[in-house]
Every structure is written in structure tokens, then in C-alpha cells.
């Protein structure tokens, strides 16, 4: 079993002192190497859910089990290390660091995992996403589609067991959407990585065998 969300709750404080409940997930499971599309409306708590799963945001209560490790029980430093080693992240806006080349952006993920950097693997990953000729280009020198491909390569750099993708096609044109989606799905399949892809677009979700509607299992009120 790759991912289990168990009785997960999260709310944000209002300036006036009250609380806004955002997440209330009784249970959600992803099998190892399973690919799931999570569909939800804007402001529905999709990004918060991903942040909680990744250990970026602490839940108010509940558990997040990844490969049988309860992420919520780890201290912050352990969560950071766990995230670096076990979780790949692909963001809507790619979140590449502009000062670093494509290759360096991939190496950066390895650097923070504390295992040392592997230029051969980083190069290989970039070649597999079709950017073998763009290794030393910085993000501003790459097209939007190419930037997202670098982000995919970076997410896979540390052999994660779970890849979280937050609207990865929202910023790319229609022509690139399918390419990016295929790339992410194929890479996860090839590397036996579980994929939880969040989207608000039904056509994107439709490409997945399993589709979960956030509103079906998240009842914050």
C-alpha cells in the first residue's frame, strides 16, 4: 500500500480568531504504482491536501501513511528528509529555480535529499523527457512545455514512491497538455511510482482509470 489518508482534518485560522475547515477526509487509499486523478473545484482544498500529504502543512488531526510511515508523526526535519526521498512534486507553475540550468534544477532535488548528486542520472532523466539537448539551458530559455518536463524529471530524481502533481497541465497549451500527461503517467508507470494528480479539468481526469472527486470524500463542514 502506497498512500493512506486516515481521518485527516485541517482548518485555517481566520484573522478574527475563528476557524475555516478545509479538509475532513475520512479515508483515501492509493495502491503502490496506482495512478489516481483527484478532481475538485478551485478553493476546494486540493492544494492543501497535497501539502498535508507531502508534510509541508501539518494537519490538525489524522494520519498520512506513505509506505507505512506516518508522515504526521515525524518531526519537521524528518518530514523534510522523507519528502525529499519519497515524494516527487510537480507544480502547476513548474517552480523551477531560474538561476539554475535544467540539469542543475534536477540535481537540486538530489542535493536536498542528502544522498549526493548524480549527474548521470539527472542527465538520463532529462534525456528521457526529451531534453537531452537542453541540459544547460536555464528556465527562461525553455518553453513552457519544456519547463514542465524539467519539473517532471526533477520530481523523479530521488526515486520517489509517490508523485504528487498539482494541476501540472494548467499552465501549458492544449498541444502540450497531453504530452505532459503522458510523460508523467509513463514515467510513473515505468518507475512504479504511485501518482496522485490533482486537476479541476474533467478532460484531464478522464484519462485516468481511477478518478476521485474531492467533494465525495472531503466534507470539511
Amino acid at each position, binding site marked *: 500500500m502506497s498512500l493512506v489518508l486516515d481521518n485527516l482534518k485541517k482548518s485555517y485560522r481566520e484573522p478574527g480568531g475563528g476557524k475555516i475547515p478545509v479538509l475532513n477526509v475520512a479515508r483515501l487509499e492509493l495502491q503502490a504504482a496506482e495512478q489516481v486523478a483527484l478532481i475538485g473545484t478551485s478553493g476546494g482544498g486540493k*492544494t*492543501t491536501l497535497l*501539502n498535508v500529504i*507531502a508534510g*509541508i*502543512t501539518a494537519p490538525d488531526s489524522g494520519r498520512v501513511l506513505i509506505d507505512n510511515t506516518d508522515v504526521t508523526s515525524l518531526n*519537521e*526535519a524528518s518530514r*523534510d*528528509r522523507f*519528502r*525529499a*526521498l519519497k515524494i516527487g*512534486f510537480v*507544480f502547476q507553475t513548474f*517552480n*523551477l*529555480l*531560474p*538561476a*539554475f540550468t535544467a540539469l*542543475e534544477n534536477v*540535481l*537540486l*532535488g*538530489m*542535493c*536536498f*535529499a542528502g544522498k549526493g*548528486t548524480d549527474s548521470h542520472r539527472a542527465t538520463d532523466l532529462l534525456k528521457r523527457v526529451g531534453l537531452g539537448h537542453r541540459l544547460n539551458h536555464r528556465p527562461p530559455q525553455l518553453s513552457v512545455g519544456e519547463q514542465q518536463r524539467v519539473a517532471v524529471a*526533477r520530481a523523479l530524481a*530521488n526515486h520517489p514512491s509517490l508523485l504528487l502533481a498539482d494541476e501540472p497541465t494548467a499552465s501549458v497549451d492544449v498541444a502540450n497538455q497531453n504530452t505532459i500527461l503522458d510523460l508523467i503517467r509513463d514515467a510513473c508507470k515505468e518507475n512504479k511510482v504511485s501518482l496522485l494528480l490533482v486537476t479541476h479539468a474533467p478532460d484531464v481526469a478522464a484519462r485516468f482509470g481511477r478518478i476521485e472527486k474531492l467533494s465525495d470524500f472531503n466534507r470539511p463542514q
Partner: protein
Amino acid sequence: MNLVTISIKSIKQRLLSSSLTALSVALGVMLMVAVLIINGVVSDLFSQPSFGFNLVVGPKGSDLSLALSAIYRLDKPGEPLPYLFYKELKEHRAVEKAVPIAIGDVTQQGAFPIVGTIPEFFDLDYAYGKPFRVRGEFLKTPWDAVIGSRVAATNGWGIGSEFKLIHGGAESDHVHDEKFRVVGVLAPTGTPNDRTAFVSLAGFWAIAGHEKPLKEAVDRLEKFRYPVPQSLRETVAEPKKGHDHGHDHDHGLLDEQKEVTAIFIRTKSTAGSIALAGEINEDVRALAVNPIFPMKRLMTMIVDNIKLMLLTLTSLIIVVSAVSIFVSIYNSMADRRREIGIMRALGARRETVFAIILAESALLCLGGGVIGLLLGHGIVAVASPIIESRSGILVNPLSFEPLELVLFPVLLVLGSLIGFLPGLAAYRTDVAAALSE
């Protein structure tokens, strides 16, 4: 890839502002290095721990002025002493060696100070245990000259070169007709001797106008309580007709007419030096001083205080530069929140992003320091000929002050201090909020 390379990348990303802030540190360090080098040279020059003699005797007045004029040739000489006084001191029981010098003129080319002296001058070591070494020979005939290494290098002179003297210093336009011929070139000593041209005292006196007019000589001798020969008194009272002392033929100068500017004395013992100095100083005629003491006083009272003031000023410049680095990095933190959020999302710990910011600030300080160090030596290289021509002090741009080494740990600490608050801001970054910006 490591934290330092990540920091360097961040610096490169903001190349203009990073360069300007590092440059401000560099300018501060440049000034400090220049101050340290020049001060070090001045300190070394004026803190010479020993000379080949232990007393300088000159006219009554300031002991510092005597040392500066006789040894360093930086001050104008005072009223000269009668040559007879030198002869008297030479025979003193405490004196091992006495060497007279006459100064005041400069070379026509390069305006290097002239020292008229006797060959025994070169028997006195220029510093303790360091004898003069010469290419060629020391003074033998009246028109011989031995020149310091700097004089030779600057004027392009060697053995056989001839030169004329300007009377009374560089400001004068009276060039003596007599020529001296270089017979020896001294090996470098790192002392004022390097920029001095030594000429035979006999030749110096033989130059037209260097002799004391008889009447003045008599007055001077009386002041010094020397018996004036009757024949001399008669000559002064009734000068021989047709004998004009204003012209330039060889007068066969009388000892009574000869003068020296100062006398270097090596005594037989330290006790003898103290006793002799006391004896001379009790008298109203002359002043004897161990040059180490006035120079030490000069260092303590003036040079060290100037150094302290300049170092304080340059330290403040560096601190102000450091504050500008702080402001630059701190202001950039708002723009970098997302960048830090991304790093944290990729697994970077709080301590890691803190260290990246700290390293960035330390690198800017250290980079500025290295550039400042090079610029400091560079500016000394540019300024050294000007300093030398104005003050006669030789400054080696490559000379290194130990305090320069202290600069780098200080800059590292300073960099860490100014990086602390921006680093703390990075440490406290809310990752989720930063990513959503």
C-alpha cells in the same frame, strides 16, 4: 552541487546588486589594506631597532628633527657644527668611532639627498650586524660618490656616471658646477641610504659656497668656545686685497671654516654612550641623542595614533558596506520567498535554507575582501612612486602586513552576522504560503 554552489548561483542571479554590495566591501578593505601597508612601511622605517651607531650629535634643538634630518633625510638640517667639534668628539675617551656628515644638497637629477661623509661611514653597519655591501668601491678621492640602490635604479646611474648637486635642496635652482663621479653602488638596505648619494666630505667642502666665510667661522668658533688663532683674527680684520671669498677657486680650506651637519658616534660601551650623551647635552653647544628614542616617541605619539584613526575610519567603511549587504539581502528576501518555498518543498530543511543565505552573505563579504586586498596592493603600487617622490619613503606594494590575514576571519564573522536576520527570514518561511504566491 552543494550549499556554496547554490549560494553562488543566487549571487549570480542578482549579479548587479551583488557586485555593487561586494564592491562596497572591496573599497573598504582596499582602503584598510592600503593604510596597513603604508603604515607598516612607515613603522618599519621609523622603528629600526638598531643602527650602526648609538648617538647622533647635532645642533641644539629638537632631537626628533635631528634624527629625521641626519638619518632619514626627511627634515631640513639645523645650524651646522664646527668641524673642530667633530675632531674633539673623535678623541673622546668613550668614542670608538665618529663619522661626520654634511647634508643639505640634492642631486640635480631625481633630487636625491646628498650626504657628504668620510670613507669610515661605510664601516658603520647600516643596522646591527648588517654591513654595507657595495658594487665598485667606497669613497677614495674628493670627487668620488657612492650611490644607494634606489638612486642608481631611478636615475639609471652606474659606476662612472657623473652628476651635479643642487644647492640647499630641491626648491633651489642653484646648480653647483662641480661634478661627482660614481665609484660604487650600494646593495639595497631597505633604509634611507638606498635613496641617498654619498659624496666625499672633502669634495663637498671643496664646492664653491660650501665653505664658511671667515668672519662667520670666527664667530661660530667663539660661540663654541674654541680658541681662535691670532692669524685668523688678523685675516678677518684685514682681508688681503684682491682675495674675494665669494668666488670658486680652491681655498685650501682651514679646519676652522669646515662644518658638519651631524656626527654619528659609536661608543665603546653602552654606559659610555649614556655618559657621553649626558656630557654633550649638559653643554649648550650641541645635542646628542640615541635616535631610537625620538623615533619611538614619534611612532607612539603620532604614527600609531594616525594608524588607529585611519583603521577606525576604514573599519567603519567596512561596517557601512556590510550594512549595505544586509539591506540588499534582506530586501531580496521578499522576492526570494517563493524560491525558498520551492527548495523547502524539494526537501531542503530550514537549517539548509538558513545556511544558504548565510553562505551568500559570507561569500559576498569574503569576495569583496579578496577584491579589496588586490585593489589595496594595486593602489599602493600606483601611489608608491608619488609617496616616494613626496616623502622619500619607499613603499613596496607587495609587502604584506600580518593584520591583512585577520581581515578574512573578521569578514567571515561579519558576513555571518549580517546574513543572520535574512537567514532567519528564510528559516521561518511558510512553505505553503510561499508556494501559493
